[in-house]
């Protein structure tokens, strides 16, 4: 952290790794990290934070490394960088006290999820009569009969805008501290392309070495399913907002309407992606993993899976008396996700894209 006088253990470990890697350079063909590393002779903390976030954890370098444990040098770049990445999220968290949430991120995200779900359920249960909660509703405005439109929109907007602000502040702070300058359009375009294709996770090649030594594209495809599923769900919500305000159409929408189609496909993709990634994580070789960060990764995957699953359940049972509580449950998970965005694994997408921008600018 910025206020500590000595470099952290993770920082020292990352530096040890990069100094040896930079004298070896056998891994230059794997990903963006090594060409970026080769431009340096000495590594500042900002450089290491940048390189750590550029690392996608494909693990190719780990299995190829002649200095990997049990070699006395113990080179393990994916592990060192995973540990340092979480420190970099904490170091640039906004507002500052929220950095604490990264210390035991799995516990933090799990508690946050439990509290958010409990809060929404409690509010729904105490503010709404049991009769309304347990009755089947139909026709336009069915959802809002359970939880008022005003309550839904204002709380969601407030939390989401705060999350956006916090993520923007964090990413900007990371960008500055890691030595990034003015962003060029070309670098940004390349970086976005790399992000969206996960090129550095073995895209275009034989895939990455995950969950073990063999090459596989599974992780990349599952991540795509999850990330694009999430974006489709987000698009569903955006389209619904347009329907509501622009066209005066009030939810619930028809099964074949655009918002429901987007949300259904997105939700299913998210479920496939998160379930697959969780399964791979269970199978994964522990050697290149950083144990301390696994909790936060599991928590985020489970939270995303929870959002998707409750959303699909809500869709399936929206015409039944279960709708009331399912809606409350789903909104509880969504609230938890929005609250957790800036203080969880989710932030990696922004930091990584920022790191990719810098790597393209330096080329």
């Amino acid at each position, binding site marked *: 952290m910025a206020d500590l006088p000595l470099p952290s253990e993770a920082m020292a470990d990352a530096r040890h790794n990069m100094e*040896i890697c930079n004298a070896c350079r056998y891994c230059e063909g794997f990903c963006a990290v090594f060409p970026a590393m080769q431009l340096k002779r000495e590594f500042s903390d900002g450089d290491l934070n940048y390189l750590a976030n550029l690392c996608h954890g494909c693990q190719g370098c780990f299995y190829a490394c002649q200095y990997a444990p049990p070699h006395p040098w113990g080179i393990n770049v994916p592990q060192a960088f995973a540990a340092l990445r979480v420190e970099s999220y904490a170091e640039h968290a906004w507002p500052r006290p929220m950095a604490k949430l990264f210390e035991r991120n799995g516990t933090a995200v799990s508690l946050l999820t439990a509290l958010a779900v409990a809060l929404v359920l409690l509010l729904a249960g105490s503010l709404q009569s049991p009769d309304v909660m347990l009755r089947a509703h139909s026709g336009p405005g069915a959802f809002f009969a359970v939880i008022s439109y005003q309550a839904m929109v204002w709380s969601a907007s407030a939390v989401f805008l705060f999350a956006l602000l916090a993520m923007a502040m964090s990413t900007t702070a990371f960008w500055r501290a890691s030595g990034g300058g003015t962003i060029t359009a070309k670098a940004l375009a390349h970086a976005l392309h790399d992000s969206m294709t996960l090129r550095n996770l073995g895209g275009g090649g034989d895939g990455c070495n995950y969950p073990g030594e063999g090459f596989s594209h599974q992780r990349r495809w599952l991540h795509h399913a999850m990330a694009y599923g999430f974006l489709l769900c987000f698009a569903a919500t955006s389209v619904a907002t347009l329907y509501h305000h622009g066209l005066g159409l009030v939810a619930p929408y028809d099964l074949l309407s655009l918002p429901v189609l987007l949300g259904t496909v997105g939700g299913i993709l998210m479920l496939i992606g998160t379930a697959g990634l969780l399964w791979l994580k269970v199978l994964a070789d522990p050697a290149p993993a950083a144990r301390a960060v696994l909790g936060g990764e599991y928590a985020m995957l489970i939270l995303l899976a929870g959002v998707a699953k409750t959303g699909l359940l809500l869709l399936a049972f929206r015409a039944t008396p279960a709708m009331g509580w399912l809606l409350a449950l789903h909104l509880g998970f969504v609230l938890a996700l929005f609250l957790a965005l800036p203080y969880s694994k989710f932030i990696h997408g922004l930091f990584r894209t920022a790191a990719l921008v810098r790597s393209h600018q330096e080329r």
Partner: protein
Amino acid sequence: MADLTRIYDVLVIGGGNAALCAAVTAREAGASVLLLESAPKPFRGGNSRHTRNFRGMHQAPTKVLTGSYLEDEYWDDLRRVTGGITDEPLARMTIRVSAEMTPWMEACGVRFQPALSGTLSLSRTNAFFLGGGKALLNAYYATAERLGVDILYDAEVTNLHVDDGFVRSAEFNHRGFPASVTARCVVAAAGGFQANLDWMRQYWGDAVDNFVIRGTPYAKGRVLKTLLDQGVAPIGDPTQFHAVALDARSPQFDGGISTRLDSVPFSVVLNRDGVRFYDEGEDVWPKRYAIWGRLIAQQPGQIAYSICDAKAYSLFMPSVYPAIKADSLAELAHKLGLDVGTVERTVAEYNAAVQPGRFDSTGLDECRTEGLTPPKTHWARRIEEAPFYGYPLRPGITFTYLGVKVNENARMLMADGRPSANLFASGEIMAGNILGRGYLAGFGMTIGTVFGRIAGREAARAARN
């Protein structure tokens, strides 16, 4: 699962590139194969673990090589580095066969960097393994396992029972316990003896205690020794080894590629007594790095110190250990443990001899000394700009040249000239047939791959008869 009660068609001794190429090839030909690797699994692969590329002949650009590299140019390169200590028919055969190797390597899962992206200017002659030698080995081991090669790690062969050129069985230590196995044919691919300091001591005395072994600590030469003791013809000068200059702070074994130091042409190199002993700027570094190991091995205490100043520091690859840094030459000499007065005098004499001229770090330039012994004939610039940097250097041994004599079928030849009935060799243990002196980047992997393939094929064939 390895079954030591059965008779294997082919026993492969060793676990590096040459061994795996032989094992996979023999298995592809239908032979039952047992491979004994003396290292435990995490350190499998011998010196191949530390390699990076393969030198391949090619008529036209390939996916992994640019331009063309024809037999005659390849042969000329080899003749030059070996000073003619080679076997032309064997060498030319190796060169020609190298042209066919990369597709087979790729079929075994070996991945190459795309041509042109290598850090070194070798993409015309050398194909670079994506991730280096360990990644290549992982691919070969996965292929061998998939094909059904039985593999034992931590299995050091201690003795072969050879009877008039016919090997009957092998004794080995498996995880510390004695074991033995019988096979119809044996491929010895167990490397040289550079990690056997007692053997090295026979030729170099106690200087060996100051040598660093760049590669595997498992190259003890026990297989080589048992073969030579039982009448296989030797090849190569037993006293000779390939050595480079590397950081004296390196671990005694297995430091690999990253311990090398490229500072020499841009610095002055002093011995323990604080005086220079060789022209640091004789030629571009890729053509000279391999002589500095020997030069340092011949200095008192087998140690030397490379010293440069601020303007030279960024001209060479970063070192694995940080440079020793000081604000004055005296302070640097003190930190390096050298006599301050002598170092100051040596550098002053050198500085005074430096002539003005055009400096070019990328090629032979005009910066040289005048009236200095030994001279520095290129890249000679005054050492005057603080901070000053120093590195201690030791000889780093890559491999030894002594081996077993083989014919073009990788069959070992006995001292009386007859070919052995069922003994084959590939890799470093027979490289001295072709590479009697010097080195050509990536050629060790070429010999290992070509002879590994030949040995595997011939051993499988011999086992069937």
